[in-house]
C-alpha cells in the first residue's frame, strides 16, 4: 500500500484533536483575479479535519471561485492551497490523482453524466481508480445509493428522469463513491423545497459523523448553517472572516450583521433554537 497516505484512524485522531495537527485545507494569501477584477485577495483559511465549514457571502464575492480554486479547477493568481498538508500544484500526476481520490465534489446541479444511469455514474470513479470485482462494485453502488437515501428504482434511471433533489443525492453518492475524507458541496440545498433541504442537511450531518468527513460547503441556506456547520467562513471585503455561528452573530461588520440579523437570519435562528429543522430521519 502507499505509505504516503496517512492512515484513516490518524485522520480521525486529528479530527478529534482539532487544532495542532495538519488541517484538511490550508489557504494562505490566496488571490483570484479575472482580468482587472479582483475576487479575493490575501485570503487565509484553515479547515480542520472532521469539521463542517460553511462558506457564505454575497453574490459575486467568489464563493464558487474559492471552491473551484481549492479543488484545482481554477488556478489562483497568487497564494497557496494546501490539502492534507500537500500542495496540489506541486504534485506530480500520480500523487495528484491519489490526492484527488481523497476529495469528493458535489456540484450545484449534481453534474451527473447525462449519458449514464445513476448507478453507472456512481461506478465511474470506482472503475476508473480501482480494480474491483463486478459484484463488489455493484454492492458498493447499492450501498452508496441507499446511504444517500435514493429510492431503489432510481438506480437504473438517467439523470434527466430525476427531480432536482434526487439529482443532488445521486451527485452526493458519486462524490462519496471513493470514500473521500474531504467533500466539497456547492450550494447543496439550493433549489430544493424546504422539507427536502432539511432532509439533505440531516443526511449530510449523518454521513459526516459516520464517515468522519471534513466538509466544505458553499451555501446561502441559513437553516443549513444553523443545522450542521461547525464553523462559518464569511467572504467579505475580499477576505474570509471565520468563526463559529455565535461569534459571527456578534460580529459588527455591516454585511455580516445584515446577513445573520436580517428577517431570514432571525427566522432561521428561531427555527434552530426550537429544534425545528426536521426531527425525522432522512428517507
Amino acid at each position, binding site marked *: 500500500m502507499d505509505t504516503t497516505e496517512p492512515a484513516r484512524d490518524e485522520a480521525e485522531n486529528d479530527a478529534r484533536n482539532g487544532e495542532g495537527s495538519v488541517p484538511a485545507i490550508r489557504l494562505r494569501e490566496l488571490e483570484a483575479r479575472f482580468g482587472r477584477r479582483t475576487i479575493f485577495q490575501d485570503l487565509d483559511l484553515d479547515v480542520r479535519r472532521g469539521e463542517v465549514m460553511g462558506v457564505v457571502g454575497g453574490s459575486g464575492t467568489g464563493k464558487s471561485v474559492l471552491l473551484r480554486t481549492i479543488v484545482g479547477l481554477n488556478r489562483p493568481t497568487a497564494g497557496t492551497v494546501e490539502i492534507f498538508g500537500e500542495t496540489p500544484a506541486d504534485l506530480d500526476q500520480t500523487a495528484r490523482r491519489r490526492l484527488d481520490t481523497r476529495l469528493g465534489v458535489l456540484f450545484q446541479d449534481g453534474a451527473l453524466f447525462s449519458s449514464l444511469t445513476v448507478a453507472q455514474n456512481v461506478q465511474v470513479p*470506482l472503475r476508473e481508480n480501482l480494480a474491483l470485482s463486478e459484484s463488489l462494485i455493484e454492492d*458498493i453502488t447499492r450501498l452508496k445509493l*441507499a446511504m444517500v437515501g435514493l429510492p431503489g428504482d432510481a438506480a*437504473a434511471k438517467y439523470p434527466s428522469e430525476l427531480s432536482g433533489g434526487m439529482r443532488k443525492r445521486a451527485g452526493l453518492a458519486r462524490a462519496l463513491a471513493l470514500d473521500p475524507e474531504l467533500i466539497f458541496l456547492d450550494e447543496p440545498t439550493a433549489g430544493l423545497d424546504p422539507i427536502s433541504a432539511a432532509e439533505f442537511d440531516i443526511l449530510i450531518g449523518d*454521513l459526516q459523523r459516520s*464517515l468522519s468527513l471534513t466538509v466544505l460547503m458553499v451555501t446561502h441556506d441559513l437553516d443549513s448553517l444553523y443545522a450542521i456547520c461547525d464553523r462559518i467562513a464569511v467572504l467579505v471585503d475580499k477576505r474570509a472572516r471565520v468563526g463559529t455561528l455565535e461569534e459571527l452573530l456578534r460580529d459588527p461588520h455591516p454585511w455580516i450583521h445584515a446577513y445573520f440579523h436580517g428577517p431570514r437570519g432571525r427566522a432561521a435562528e428561531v427555527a434552530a433554537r426550537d429544534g425545528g429543522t426536521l426531527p425525522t430521519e432522512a428517507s
Partner: protein
Amino acid sequence: MAEAEGWIRTAQENDRLIIAAGGRWVLATSAELDRRLRAVSPGSASSIVIDLAEVVALDTAGAWLVLRTQQALAAGGRRSVGLENIGARYLPLMHQVEESGGRRQHLLPPSYYRFGDFTARIGRITIGLVKRGGELLGFVGLIAIIAFRALRHPSRIRFTSLINHMEQTGVDALPIVGLLSFLIGVVMAFQGADQLRRFGAEIYTVNLLGVAILRELGVLLAAIIIAGRSGSAFTAQIGTMKVNEEVDALQVLGMDPVEVLVLPRLMALLLTMPLIAFYSNIMALAGGALMAWATLDIPFSVFLQQLQGAISGWTFWLGVLKAPFFAGIIALTGCYEGLRVARSAESVGRQTTRSVVESIFLIIVADALFSILFSRLGI
C-alpha cells in the same frame, strides 16, 4: 503482513471459527479482502466470530465486506455469526452501512433481446423516419405561414437579428469557403489537364472547369460547407436556448419562437447563400485558372476567352438558382432539429450531428433532382 494492508486470519476452536480481521479495511484494499473473504469456508463450525480488534481503518467498503461476510456465513440463520471488538469510532459507520446495505435493486435499465427484435427495430426506425419526414413537411408549412404573415407586416421582421445572422453565415464564412473552393479548382484543373493531355486537348480543361464548377460544384461545395458551419450552429444555438428554457420564455412573453428564432436565420441564409455560391464559383475558377497557367501555360486572357466560349448564359444561373433551395434545406433542418432538442446537454450534441447529416443528405438528393429536372427540360 504489512501494517498498511488489510488482512484476515482464521482459527478453529472446536466448533467455533474465529476470523480475525486487521489492518486497513478500506476501498483500496477491498478487492484483495473481497477475494480472501469469499474463500473462507465455515466448514463444520456452528458458531463464527469475526474479530475486528486489529482493524486500524474502516470505510464503507470495509464495513460492507464485514457485514456481507456476516450475512453470507450466517446462511439464513443456521449459524450464529458474531462481530467482536468493533472500535467505538466505527460504530456509527457500521450502523449506517447495515441500515443501507443488502437492498436489492436493479442498477441498469432492463434490456432483453428477444427473437425478432432486429426486425422490430427496423420497423421502428422506418416509422420514425416517415414521421419525421411528415413533421419536417409540417414545419415547412408552418414557416411558410409565418413568413407570409411577416411579409404582409414587414415591421415584424427582426432586422437586427437578420443582419447579425447574415454576417455570421455569410461574411464570416468567406475565408473558409474561398480557400476550399480555390483548392478544389486547383485539384480539378490538375486532374482534368492530366487526362485531357493524352488527347492533346488540354485547352478543354477550361471547358471542364467552367461547366463543372458553375453548374454543380461551386454551389454544392458552398452548401456543404455552410451546412457544416451554419446549419450546425443554428441547431446548437436554438438547442441551447431550448435547454435553458429560453424558448419557453419567449413563448410565455408572447413571442413566437419560430418568428423570432427561425425566420431571421432562414431569411439570412436565403439572402447570403446565392452570394456565397457566386463567390465560391469565382474562387474555384481562380484556382483553376492559376493551375491552367502553371501547368498548361494557358495565360489568363486565353483562359477567359475559352471560358466564354464554353459556357452559355444559362450555365451560371443553373448553378446559382439552386442556392436558395439549398439555403432553405440547411436553415429549416438546422432550426427544426434545434427545436427538437430535449432538456439535456447530450441532446444538443445529438441533434446537431443529426442536423448536419440530414441537411447534407437532403442537399445532395435535391441536387440530383435538379439534374433530372434540368435534363428533362433540356437545359
